[in-house]
C-alpha cells in the first residue's frame, strides 16, 4: 500500500487540532472540527471497503524507524478486530463534535483541540502494531480526557477528573512494567506481531496476565475497578461521555484481544474462569446498581458496566461464537451507549436536570426524540432486530458452554437490563405530560438529527443484517482462537 491511509486517518484529527489553534472564531472552530471528523470518517469507510475479509494478516501496514536502539518502530496496521474500532471511533468523533456544538459554550477552541487530539490518540491505539507506540497513544489519552472532564464537566468535575486520571494511570503503569518485561522476554522487540509468536514460560505469563488484567480491567471497567466510571460519566460533558463509553471502554477489551490472549495464551486459558466470574459479577452488580439510579447518566453509566461484562464474558469463553459476539458487542455498545449518552445530553441541554423523577410525559413534548430514545433503549436491552441482540445471543450461546453459573448470571443481567431500561423509559417518556409544562422543551433539530441518525442506522443494520460486520471479524477472531488454543503447533503452520 503506497498511500499511508492509516497514518492519514490517525493524524488527520491532530492536524485539524493544529489548524484550530490558529482560528479565532468559535464557529470556524466548530466547522473545522466537524469537517475533519467527517473526512476522517469517510476515509474509514474507504478503509473498510478496501479491507480484505479473507485474511487475518494485518492490512494497510506501515513501518518506519523510530527508536532503533530500543527496537521501537512506528508501525501501524489493522486486522478484522481493530478495523471495526477504527471505524467506530471515527464515527463517534463526528457525533461528539455535533453533540458539543452548543453544549460547549466556553473555551470552544480548547475543547475542540482536546477532542481532536483525543480522536487521534484513540485511532492510534487501535492501529498501533508496536507496543511502545501503543503505550504512548494509550497513556497520552489521559491528558485530553482529563481536560475534557475537568474543564468542561459538571459541578463535581475536578474530583471526577482526578479519579479518572489516577485510576487509569495506576492501572497502566503496571501495564508498562509488563510491556518492558515482555520486551526482554520476547527478544528485545516491541513489535506486537513478533511478540505474539513466542512461548513464554507459564510463570512469566501469569505475572504479565495480572499486570495486564489490572490495566485493562480499569479501562473496561470490571468490578471492582469500576468506581471511577460513574463519576467520570456523570461529570463529563456529553461528548466526553460518548467518547468514554463509546471508545475508551472498548480499549480495555481490545487490550485483552490484542495482548493478553495472543501473547499469554496459557495464562489466559488458565485464568479464564476468573475473568468469567468477574464478568458475571459486573453484569449482575452493574445491573442492580443501574436499577437503583435516579440520575439518567448514572443509570446509563452503570448499564455500561453491566454491558461491558457481556463483552469480557464473550471474549473469555475462548470459543468462536462468544469471541465474535464479544467483539461485535463492543461495537454495538459503542453505538448504543454512545447514542444514549447523546440523548441524555440533549435532554439535559433543555431541562438542566438529569433526575429521572423530574421527567414524565416526554413523549408528548418531544415525540421524535422519544422515538429515538425508544430505539436505543430497546437496542440496549437487546431486543431482537437490534444490534445488541445479535451480539448478546452469540455471547450467551457460548457462555453456558464455558460456565453454567456464569451463563445463568448473564441471563439475569439481561433481565435486569430490561427492568431498569424500561423502567427508565416509562418514568421519563410516558405518563402525563408534566415535563413539557415545567421546562421549555423542543424536539430534535437538524443538527441533533444528523448526530443521532447515523447511530440509529447501525442499530438496525447490525440487528437485521450483521453479516458484513461478522465477516470483518470472523477470520481474525478465528485466528486469535488458534493462537490461544493451538499455540504449541504454531511452528507447523505456514
Amino acid at each position, binding site marked *: 500500500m503506497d498511500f499511508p491511509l492509516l497514518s492519514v486517518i490517525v493524524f488527520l484529527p491532530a492536524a485539524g487540532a493544529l489548524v484550530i489553534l490558529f482560528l479565532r472564531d468559535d464557529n470556524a472552530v466548530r466547522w473545522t472540527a466537524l469537517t475533519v471528523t467527517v473526512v476522517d470518517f469517510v476515509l474509514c469507510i474507504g478503509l473498510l471497503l478496501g479491507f480484505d475479509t479473507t485474511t487475518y494478516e494485518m492490512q494497510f501496514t506501515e513501518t518506519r*524507524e*523510530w*527508536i*532503533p*536502539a*530500543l527496537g521501537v518502530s512506528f508501525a501501524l496496521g489493522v486486522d478484522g478486530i481493530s478495523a471495526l474500532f477504527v471505524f467506530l471511533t471515527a464515527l463517534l468523533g463526528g457525533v461528539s463534535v455535533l453533540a458539543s456544538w452548543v453544549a460547549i459554550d466556553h473555551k470552544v477552541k*480548547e475543547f475542540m483541540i482536546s477532542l481532536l487530539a483525543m480522536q487521534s490518540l484513540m485511532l492510534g491505539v487501535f492501529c498501533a502494531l508496536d507496543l511502545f507506540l501503543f*503505550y*504512548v497513544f494509550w*497513556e*497520552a489519552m*489521559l*491528558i485530553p480526557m*482529563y*481536560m475534557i472532564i*475537568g*474543564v468542561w464537566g459538571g459541578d463535581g*468535575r*475536578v474530583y471526577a*477528573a*482526578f479519579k479518572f*486520571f*489516577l485510576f487509569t*494511570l*495506576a492501572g497502566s*503503569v*503496571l501495564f*508498562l*512494567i509488563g510491556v*518492558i*518485561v515482555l*520486551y*526482554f522476554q520476547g527478544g528485545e522487540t516491541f513489535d506486537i506481531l513478533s511478540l505474539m509468536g513466542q512461548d513464554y514460560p507459564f510463570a512469566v505469563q501469569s505475572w504479565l496476565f495480572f499486570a495486564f488484567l489490572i490495566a485493562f480491567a480499569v479501562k473496561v471497567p470490571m468490578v471492582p475497578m469500576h468506581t471511577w466510571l460513574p463519576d467520570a460519566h456523570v461529570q463529563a460533558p456529553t461528548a466526553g461521555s460518548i467518547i468514554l463509553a463509546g471508545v475508551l471502554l472498548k480499549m480495555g477489551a481490545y487490550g485483552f484481544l490484542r495482548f493478553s490472549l495472543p501473547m499469554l495464551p496459557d495464562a489466559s486459558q488458565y485464568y479464564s474462569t476468573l475473568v468469567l466470574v468477574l464478568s458475571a459479577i459486573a453484569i449482575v452488580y452493574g445491573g442492580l446498581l443501574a436499577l437503583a439510579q435516579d440520575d439518567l447518566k448514572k443509570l446509563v453509566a452503570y448499564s455500561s458496566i453491566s454491558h461491558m461484562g457481556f463483552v469480557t464474558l464473550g471474549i473469555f469463553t475462548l470459543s468462536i461464537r462468544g469471541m465474535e459476539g464479544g467483539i461485535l458487542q463492543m461495537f454495538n455498545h459503542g453505538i448504543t451507549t454512545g447514542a444514549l449518552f447523546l440523548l441524555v445530553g440533549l435532554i439535559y441541554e433543555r431541562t438542566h436536570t438529569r433526575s429521572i423523577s423530574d421527567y414524565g410525559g416526554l413523549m408528548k413534548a418531544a415525540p421524535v426524540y422519544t422515538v429515538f430514545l425508544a430505539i436505543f433503549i430497546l437496542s440496549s436491552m437487546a431486543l431482537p432486530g437490534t444490534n445488541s441482540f445479535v451480539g448478546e445471543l452469540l455471547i450467551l450461546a457460548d457462555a453456558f458452554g464455558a460456565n453454567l453459573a456464569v451463563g445463568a448470571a448473564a441471563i439475569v443481567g439481561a433481565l435486569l437490563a430490561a427492568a431498569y431500561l424500561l423502567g427508565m423509559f416509562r418514568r421519563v417518556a410516558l405518563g402525563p405530560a408534566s415535563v413539557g409544562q415545567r421546562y421549555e422543551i423542543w424536539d430534535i433539530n437538524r443538527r441533533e438529527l444528523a448526530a443521532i441518525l447515523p447511530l440509529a442506522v447501525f442499530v438496525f443494520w447490525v440487528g437485521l443484517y450483521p453479516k458484513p460486520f461478522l465477516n470483518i471479524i470472523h477470520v481474525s477472531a478465528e485466528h486469535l482462537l488458534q493462537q490461544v488454543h493451538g499455540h504449541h503447533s504454531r511452528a507447523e503452520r505456514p
Partner: protein
Amino acid sequence: MTPAALLQSVLASLPEIVVITGACVLLIVGLFVPKGRSHVLVWASIAIVAAAAAATLALAGVVRPAYSGMFVVDGFASFFKVLFYLATALTLLLSPKYAEIEKIERSEYYVLLLFALSGMMIMASGTDLLSIYVGLELMALSTYVLTGFLRDDRRSNEAALKYVILGAVSSGIFLYGVSLVYGLTGTTQLDAIAATLTADAPLDPGLLLAIVFIVTGLVFKVGAVPFHMWVPDIYEGAPTTITAFLSVGPKAAGFAVILRVFLNPLFAASDVWIVVAVIAVVTMALGSFVALVQDNIKRLLAYSSIAHAGFALLGVVAGGVNGVASVMLYLLIYVFMNLGIFGIVIMMRNSDFSGEAIEDYAGFAKSHRVLALLMLLFLFSLAGIPPTAGFFAKFYVLVALIEQGFIALAVIAVLLSAVAAYFYIRIVMVMYMREPAGAFNPALTLPVRIALAITAAGTIGIGLFPAWFLSLAQQSVFGS
C-alpha cells in the same frame, strides 16, 4: 610533566579555561557597566558559555587524559558539559528581568554563575578524587553566595546559611572518605584505586566505610534521602532563578560524579548498589508523598526534584551501559522540563506579585492560554505522561532496571510516580478549572520567551524523537 603534555592538558581543559577567564574578565568589566544596562552582562555570559560549548564540541570525539590522570575529556564528560552549558545558558536567559524585579542586578550574580559552571565542568571531567573535590567546592561556594543573593530577604539569608553549614559538613564527610581511601590504597586516582582493589579480591571493610562516606557526600549534593533536608528550605529561600539552576545543574554534576565513580568496575562489583537502591526508593517515596501537601510551588518543586533524583538513582542501581545512559538522558530531559516550569514560575514574579503559592495560578489558563499550555506540557512531562520527554526518561530507566532483573524496584518506581502525578495535575487543575482571583501580569521578556521556547521544544522534541538523544547518551557512556 613535559611541555608537550602540559600543552595537551591545557588544550583538554580549554573549555574550563574559557569559562574561568571569562568570569574573571566579567568580574572586572562588571564594575564599569552602568546600572540598568546589566543585560550586556547577560549576553556576555551567554557568549562565554557558547565559546566554551564550541571548545567542548571541538574537543569531543577523542579521549584526552590530562594533568597526569587528574582530568579527562571523554564522551561522558562532554555530555555532561553540554548539559551544564544548557542549564547555565537557560538560567542566564531567565535571570535579567527577575534580577531587575528583585533588585539584584549585580555583575557578581553572573560571574558566580559562571564559576559554578566551571566547578561543575571540573566535576564531570575529574578522574581523581581531589580534582573532583576542587570542582565540587568551586561549585558549592558559588552557589552558597547565589542562594543568599536576596540580601534583604530573611528566607534567602537563612537558606544561604543553612546551605553553607550543611554543604560544609557534607564536603567534610566526602573529604574524610577520600582521606580514608588514600590511607588504604595510597592513591586518590579512580583508575589506580580500582587497580589496587582488583589485585586483592575481598573488599576491605575500611574501604567500604570510605565508599559510604564518599557516597554520602555525593548523595547530599543530589538531595537524596536522608540528606535531603536542606533542599526544600534552600529551594524556597533562594532567588527563583538560582533555585532553577540548583535543581538541574549541581544536581546533574553530583550525578556525574556518582556515575564516574560507579562506572568503575570495582563499585559495580561491590554491594553498594543495595544501599543506593534503598536510598533511591526512600527518596522517591518521600519526595512524592511530601509534595502532595505543599502549597508553595517552589517547595513543591523542591520535593518533586527529590522524587526525580530518586528515580534517576534507580538508573545508577541498574548500572551497565543502559543504566548509566538512562541516568544521563534523564538528567538532560530534566533540564528541559524543570527549567521550563521554573521559567514560568520566575516569569510570574512581578512587582507586587510573588507567584509562589499554587493558588496564585488559579485561572491562569483563562487569560494566558499559551503560557498555561506550556506549563501544562512541563507538568505532564514531569509527571511522565507520553508523548512528552519526561515519559521517555522514566521509560528508559525502567528498561535499564528490568534488563538487570530489578522488576520489584521498577514496580515500586512506577507506583510512586503515579502518586507523584497527583500533585502535578493538581496544578493543572488549579490553572484550568478555577476562576482567576485577579489579573495576571507575567514578566514576559524576550530572553524568557527564548528560554521557554527552548525548554518546550526540548520537552516535546525529545519526547517524540528520542532516538538521536538516546544513541548520544549510549555512545557517551563508552567514553569516545
